[in-house]
């Protein structure tokens, strides 16, 4: 088994063992979607209007909240040291961790979005574009987030810093993601939005593992 596969498998097994990793973000997403109507009021017209935005912000927050944990446990129990001391390239191992993060926190949202969208009375077409935009957008969130998580690892006040670093970088994904759905609803077509999202995934996938690995080496030096 390659080291990449080994790290991926270990992270997934651990998450399944603790269960929470998988469910946390999904559950957070569901909850956010259920709470807003309670805060805003039950009128379906309003809800339909704000639905895509709420769902995308929910996905973004869900992904961001699990970022802190991406490297923290490995750092605390010494596994990260061992990974840094392993003869394999740290970037490859980190890429595996990022993939695991997406599988655990991004993919479930993609699968769930169409169901939750029903609560906001979205049309079938809009639901489809919502799912597609999340499928392209959530990997971007994980990739960008990994760099932030690595940079703030073990830093005092890391949580806030992480948000502060990552959030501005998330905004384009949010704007194009939620924008795609709204464009679809208003009949403009979402393809432009979606192709920009795809380009963002590709660029992030190239740079993020490398940058995260470099940041992790710095974090270990304390």
């Amino acid at each position, binding site marked *: 088994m390659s080291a990449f596969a080994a790290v991926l498998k270990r992270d997934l097994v651990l998450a399944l063992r603790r*269960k929470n990793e998988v469910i946390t973000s999904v559950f957070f997403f569901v909850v956010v979607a259920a709470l807003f109507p309670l805060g805003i009021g*039950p009128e379906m017209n309003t809800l339909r209007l704000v639905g895509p935005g709420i769902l995308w912000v929910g996905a973004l927050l869900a992904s961001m909240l699990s970022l802190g944990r991406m490297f923290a446990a490995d750092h605390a129990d010494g596994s990260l040291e061992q990974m840094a001391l392993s003869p394999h390239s740290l970037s490859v191992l980190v890429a595996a961790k990022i993939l695991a993060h997406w599988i655990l926190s991004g993919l479930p949202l993609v699968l769930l979005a169409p169901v939750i969208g*029903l609560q906001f009375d979205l049309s079938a077409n809009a639901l489809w574009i919502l799912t597609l935009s999340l499928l392209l957008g959530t990997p971007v969130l994980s990739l960008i987030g990994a760099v932030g998580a690595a940079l703030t690892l073990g830093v005092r006040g890391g949580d806030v810093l992480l948000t502060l670093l990552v959030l501005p970088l998330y905004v384009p994904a949010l704007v194009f993601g939620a924008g795609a759905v709204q464009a679809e609803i208003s009949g403009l077509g979402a393809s432009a939005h979606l192709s920009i999202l795809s380009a963002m995934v590709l660029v992030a996938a190239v740079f993020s593992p490398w940058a995260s690995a470099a940041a992790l080496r710095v974090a270990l030096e304390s």
Partner: protein
Amino acid sequence: MIRKLFYFSSPQNFYPLAGKLWPLFACLATVLTVWGLWLGMFVAPTDVQQGEGYRIIYVHVPVSWMSMVIYLAMAFWALLGLTFNTRLSGMLTCALAPTGAIFAFLSLWTGALWGKPMWGTWWVWDARLTSELILFFLYLGFIALTSAIDDARRADKAGAILALVGALNVPVIYFSVKWWNTLHQGASVSLTKGSSMQQTMLEAMLIMAVAFWMYAIAMTLYRVRSIILIRERHSQWVADLPEVKALSLEARA
């Protein structure tokens, strides 16, 4: 009478009692279901406004009622367990939860299936619907909490605290959501059509409700027996049970 209650509050004595009682309740449930369904599906007339669609009421209402009753029962046992520290209470609380959760889910499901033809939508943020959704979450929380804790006694105590806190909250939740809805002039739907319900329909619905009640009791008794077995597996009386003896002989042979 009191002495009898004390007697049966020990798992060892409750186990055979539950074993005798559950078939009784299961039979009652079956008979009443058949009767209720007969009345509801074959005798009761078509509803003037809702056509045949109204017949969902025969599962929807019993299931909704029971989902609330079961939560109250859980809170009752939890309180008993926390105050008198009886082991059986914790087991009963745990045994009730799955049935309650299933009923809460069914309430949502049948309600949604009713809502589509009647209101044209699967879901509205109506007070009753919303509080049922929250009740379902409470059930899930209880089950998740108790099953995430390996140590049985710890799970019982934690579950009891949660059940009580939840029960205190249920009325507040219902009331709050109701208020919320009036503020927003409601989702412009009403669940009941008032008292215009026909006599046969009402009878059938009540019979179904009693049937589901019996079903819940039978399930709980059956389940609590399994829980008692697992918790008490170290003790001698379990080893002396006829069913255990038979099984271990079989295994040895």
